[in-house]
């Protein structure tokens, strides 16, 4: 069953499937094919979206969006697929996947807030964790947290000295 799935994935969509280990596949796909692949996989039984993540490859100037899927069905539950796609770092726009997986909503909000990836079509993109906006989103590689800490908290003087 797995072989046919792999062949279908590579034939219908020009994505390359690499078998990491027995039940962990990584699928690298083109960025405008991702939604179709997700729908196709949901149809195949992978109806559980574990995680949406984003890796900041700063040298290549790209964000890599990661969709990790698994399944609730008995036979497929051992497998988890990592669907990867690359989007440019300068203008990180992408489609929302809420209409396919309902639980994607907080993950996308978090990636929007911490990486600056905006998902068009997302109903509620307002901040999730942070209560202020940072010039560069904090989880990007070029945000130096130690320098930021030095500037903001280092400059605040302690109160004992004052009368």
């Amino acid at each position, binding site marked *: 069953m797995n072989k046919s799935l792999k062949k279908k994935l590579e034939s219908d969509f020009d994505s390359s499937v690499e078998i990491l280990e027995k*039940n962990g596949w990584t699928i690298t796909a083109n960025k405008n094919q991702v939604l179709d692949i997700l729908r196709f996989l949901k149809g195949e039984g992978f109806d559980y*979206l*574990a995680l949406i993540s984003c890796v900041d490859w700063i040298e290549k100037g790209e964000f890599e969006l990661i969709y*990790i899927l698994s399944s*609730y069905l008995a036979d497929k539950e051992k497998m988890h697929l990592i669907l990867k796609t690359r989007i440019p770092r300068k203008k990180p726009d992408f489609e929302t996947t809420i209409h396919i997986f*309902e*639980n994607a909503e907080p993950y996308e909000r978090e990636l929007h807030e911490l990486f600056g990836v905006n998902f068009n079509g997302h109903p509620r993109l307002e901040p999730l964790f942070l209560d202020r906006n940072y010039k560069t989103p904090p989880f990007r590689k070029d*945000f130096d*947290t130690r320098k930021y800490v030095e500037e903001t908290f280092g400059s605040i003087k302690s109160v004992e000295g004052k009368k």
Partner: protein
Amino acid sequence: MTERELEMYFGPQHMGMVGNFGITLTVKGDRILKAKANPGYLHRGFEKLMELRTWTQNSPLVCRVNVMEPHSMEMVYSMAVEKLAGIKVPMRAKYIRTLTLELSRLASHLFGCWAYANMLGFDTVAQWAMYHRDLILDLFEDFTGGRVYPIYIWPGGVRRDLPDGFKEKALNVLHEIRSKISDYDATFFNNKLFYDRAKGIGKISQEEAKNLGGTGQILRGNGVESDIRKIEPYAAYDKIDFEIPTREGGDAYSRVWIIRDEMIQSVHIAMKCLEQMPEGSVYNKVPNPFKWKIPKGETYVRVESSRGELGLYMVSNGGDKPYRVHFRTPSYPHGLTILEKILVGENIADVGNIMISLYVTPPEIDR
């Protein structure tokens, strides 16, 4: 008198809230129309900090993600590093890891019992649960050195072997907890008041749970037998047979009952671990912490924590520090999507009741 729509803060400082988490409810009279979760009070940017520390320096940091259950965090980090670096773990260390995880599941369930019983006003059960949890913390202090934060499971095995005389001590504690379960049943689980208070509250259907990414008690509360320890056995779970308790219902009542059944299973597994524990070394030395570079690669590993599926997606760029780390914590979907959906239509008094039955812990959401 027409009921006006009000916006109410079930804010971070609230007697019914366990942990630092805010929910803004739009309420009509007593019914909740809309709930909006407001996390972020405990956000420390863990994944950013982990990118600045070497592989060995991360193990004290990684167990601080969720304070209710630091052991499964360490386990999932160790498994990810071992998979990326190709490190083998000796068999005895696997058994000790299973023992630690089961003891921490027991402690975390007892903490859940305290929170839940306190929420519904059953103070006697809360006192017992906390006392038994403290016995387990004494065990942790003996063999890991730390009462709450163990820093014990780390890549390559376990940090120290079990002290001698630990087996009898642990068996006494486990026997005592096992014998007290019947008292818990009498005063709390089979209590009519608890039945009325929790039956039918926080109901979620199986499809809805699956759509919203629910794992752990929420699925098992709807009769789905899903447990990572059986699906992808790690540590020494394949060597010990145990059952996964499930119930129909899908409401707070059945979820809390599952916590009770899982406590019995945990005690059973822990005892089995202690008996079948082989002899041998417990730690395969990892390379020198200042120079250890893990080859390029990425991996997703998952563990069954007491709240559901705890996963870790880790990318290594061939350097001596992780390149990207992302924890898939079980409370994330439970506390954000599922909680907002279940609260609609419930009344205000049950917000705390539902939140704890979903076993939501805020530090896991914000990381």
